């Protein structure tokens, strides 16, 4: 993985997984997201970049309705997953979140064993019919989280005893275990050191083959390294959205250019 890759990245069209139309988010009286339109493709890593407080995390949390837990938060507009409105009255957010998994900024493993951390999702969703099947899911998920080799001998050790980078990969494995279709990542590397970051980034690139990945990041280098599409948010607006290569080499909006060159943010 290096910055040169974005030049040779090929531009293709893939089916649209999530689509937002005229999305508005309010926290009480403040208008946090203003009229955002975005199409997120399948099997693609989409990066949301922008200065602090620009609304990129808020928008990400709209995609699996995590904002529902905040009383004063209100979402308007339509967001569709495979053409279905996720804010429809008939949609149970619990079902939605099983399809749209999430990895958070701070690694947050449950204070349980590594095995139970990963097995929790499949258990509550009834994905495994037997212990053997569950074991298999756990192993597969940990492998996909690129952490299997490090923890296979201590699956019963507490997940909180791992290092920060391992914890975050465990959280990714945990999210993967429920077999989602979309994986949302809210600054997954901000609490990690450069080596752990590199491991997670590599992992994200692999996950792209199976999922649509949306990643919020503060680091433009990271966005450039891992994503195919980039959305630049500023003050609650989606300023520019397009191929990552285009955004970084040939931004159309002056604000994007200012941000990328370090003049705002």
């Amino acid at each position, binding site marked *: 993985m290096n910055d040169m890759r974005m030049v040779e990245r090929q531009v293709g069209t893939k089916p649209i997984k999530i689509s937002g139309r005229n999305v508005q988010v309010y926290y009480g009286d403040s208008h946090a997201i203003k009229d955002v339109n975005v199409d997120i493709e399948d099997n693609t890593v989409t990066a949301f970049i922008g200065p602090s407080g620009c609304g990129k995390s808020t928008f990400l949390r709209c995609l699996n309705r995590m904002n529902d837990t905040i009383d004063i938060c209100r979402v308007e507009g339509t967001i569709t997953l495979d053409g279905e409105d996720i804010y429809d009255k008939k949609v149970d957010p619990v079902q939605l979140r099983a399809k749209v998994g999430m990895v*958070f900024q701070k690694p947050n493993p449950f204070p349980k064993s590594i095995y139970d951390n990963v097995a929790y999702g499949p258990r509550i969703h009834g994905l495994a019919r037997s212990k053997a099947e569950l074991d298999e899911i756990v192993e597969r998920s940990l492998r996909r989280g690129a952490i299997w080799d490090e923890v296979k001998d201590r699956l019963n050790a507490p997940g*909180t005893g791992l290092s920060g980078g391992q914890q975050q990969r465990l959280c990714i494995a*945990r999210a993967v275990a429920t077999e989602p279709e979309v994986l949302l990542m809210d600054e997954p590397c901000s609490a990690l050191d450069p080596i752990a970051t590199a491991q997670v980034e590599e992992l994200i690139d692999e996950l792209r083959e199976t999922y649509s990945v949306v990643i919020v990041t503060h680091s433009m280098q990271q966005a450039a390294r891992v994503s195919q599409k980039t959305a630049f948010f500023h003050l609650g607006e989606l300023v520019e959205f397009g191929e990552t290569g285009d955004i970084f080499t040939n931004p159309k909006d002056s604000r994007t250019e200012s941000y990328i060159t370090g003049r705002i943010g």
Partner: protein
Amino acid sequence: MTDVTVAEKTSKHASSLHQTDVRTKRRNASEARFRFYGLTAIAVGVFALIVLMASILSNGIPAFFQTYVIMNVDLKADVLDPKGNRDPDDIAKVMTFGYTPLINEATKTLVAEIGGEVPGLTDKMVNNMISREAAGQLRRFVLAHPDEIGKTVKFEFLANGRIDGYFKGRVTRESAALDSNVSVEQLDIADALKRDGHLETRFNFAFLTNPDASDQRPEAAGIGVAILGSAYMMLIVLGLALPIGVAASIYLEEFAKTNWLTDIIEVNISNLAAVPSIVFGILGLAIFINFMHLPQSAPIVGGLVLTLMTLPTIIISTRAALKSVPNSIRDAALGIGASKMQTVFHHVLPLAMPGILTGTIIGLAQALGETAPLLLIGMVAFVKDFPAAPPEGFFDPATALPVQVYNFTQRSDPAFYERASGAIIVLLIFLLIMNALAIVLRRRFERRW
């Protein structure tokens, strides 16, 4: 920055670090003063605690020892079984009063045996040395063992409260000379009995297992009914306050939306925690006794009143415990598609458990020591009979430990004062055990994230 700052720079600080400037001196002095205030406050507190403990222990420990007189009693068949047929019904017709002469006679024989000839000693004085409880004890024995009638059996009777007090230092020869209930002659005899091994003072388990006794026989009084009554009430409080309190807290903390209604509820719960306990007693009297017609003096009513009193404490501490679980855990569970309830019960509640248990135990300890509301619902009554086993026992009359303490202090005989202190020691031991349990639980389930 500017020239001014540069010019003043030299004058702002003392030239040498080896000299303390005035400002620093003043600052250090004020810190020293504050440390002194703090130490004084702690010293005053520790002193008060030591005085309290010393006073309670010195007054109360004698209650755990009791003086017994050991003697042989001739169970005369013609007195105990006048018809001579050993029929339990006929034996039961001899009332407790009928047993007294046998004990009087045995005492007299014992005094004569040890050669206790003291000038001025009357038969009445000799008889009074043995507790009035003895006749009842003898009758219970005979009814339980009718075959022993006609034989001579060795008994240990309680000594009268004043004689007992003499060996514990509560009664002296000087005080006895002024006391119409005990005479110096009796004390001489008691000394003689002790010398010959017919009288001994030893650990008094009966204090923990006996029910209360009437004013005339403090030596027989115990706190068994009170301990049982308190235990029943604690069971009721635990069984009701914990589930109700935890359910209410979980709902308020995790599910309820913040609006004016939940705000009002929140304010009221905090206020309820500060309501004087006697008010809960009046509430209990009005609702549980006058309206619902539950029996008076019963642990069920006491338990319900104490439940109402403990609920705010449990709710407040449970909410604090739930609040202290980091949101990242909730996010993690919700993020992989757990429902709100699964999130709470699988992840949040287990993490909040030590806090909840600590709060509950502290609430229970508070309830255990509560007196005022129990006075109003009639638990201050004199209760001689043990309540039955639960659940029927919840409806039988009983007393509670703190109320028993209050009750003992109302009696005139100083021997009861000693028992009140003894009961306080038992109460304090229970409280210490509960608090220790709270600490152990907290340590055990220390935060794991």
